[in-house]
């Protein structure tokens, strides 16, 4: 995932940077648009699902799909810390929308479609 280096539209590049940071975390399987699909940022030419930087005092919204082998509160806490630092100490609302189940563990559960 490339991070834009152009100085225009700082909130947009922040969203991309947040997305990149979140995806590098080992407990994260992917980004997700949240329960209603509303957690997203509109960038030129594409829609970045799963990250929404709030305006002003609004909290940052993050929608993620996590792996199953790590306790969720631990991963969430780490993500919140990292993203909050990137966004100047803003509050971060995280929605764990789904978990990625390996096929070997439960074939029917793993068959559910990924982020919508």
């Amino acid at each position, binding site marked *: 995932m490339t991070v834009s280096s152009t100085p225009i539209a700082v909130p947009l590049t922040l969203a991309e940077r947040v997305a990149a940071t979140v995806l590098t975390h080992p407990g994260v399987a992917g980004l997700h648009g949240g*329960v209603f699909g509303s957690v997203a940022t509109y960038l030129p030419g594409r829609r970045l699902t799963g990250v929404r930087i709030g305006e002003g005092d609004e909290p940052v919204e993050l929608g993620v799909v996590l792996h199953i082998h790590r*306790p969720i509160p631990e991963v969430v806490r780490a993500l*919140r810390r990292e993203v909050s630092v990137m966004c100047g100490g803003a509050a971060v609302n*995280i929605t*764990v*929308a*789904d978990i990625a189940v390996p096929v070997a563990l439960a074939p029917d559960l793993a068959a559910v479609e990924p982020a919508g």
Partner: protein
Amino acid sequence: MTTPATTTPTTATPTGTVSSPARLADDTAQGRTTIAASVVQKIAGIAAREISGVHSMGGGVSRAFGAIRERIPGGGTGAANIAGVQVEVGEKQAAVDLDIVVEYGASIVDLARAVRRNVITAVERMTGLEVIEVNIAVNDIHLPTADNGDEVQPVQPSRVE
């Protein structure tokens, strides 16, 4: 219900127990954490299946209903798309309803107890939510000799034309 000792590897939290509901409430100062129902559903479903003696999940109405819902596209996080597992998830607590089909030969009471214990442990450890109840409905029993447990009537050819 005892808290497993190895559940909280992070040392930063003042509250050390995984079953303490205050864990998620602590986060409100820096943001809210929402766990979708399907997450708890999957974890509960896997935990229930782990117990040997559980043949499958679902049964009766919920099995048919679940089979239909699984095929609806976009029924991702919101819908109860996993047969045999219904959950209610709040900010700090969760309640689980399971429909299971058991294998013949298992003590159903012991099996239900083991399933309940495993589901509670798995959900509390993985999500940090307090599980307030796990209801288990044993809908069917799988007999090893016949594929379906119902009586199979041989199809009689019609005697008259």
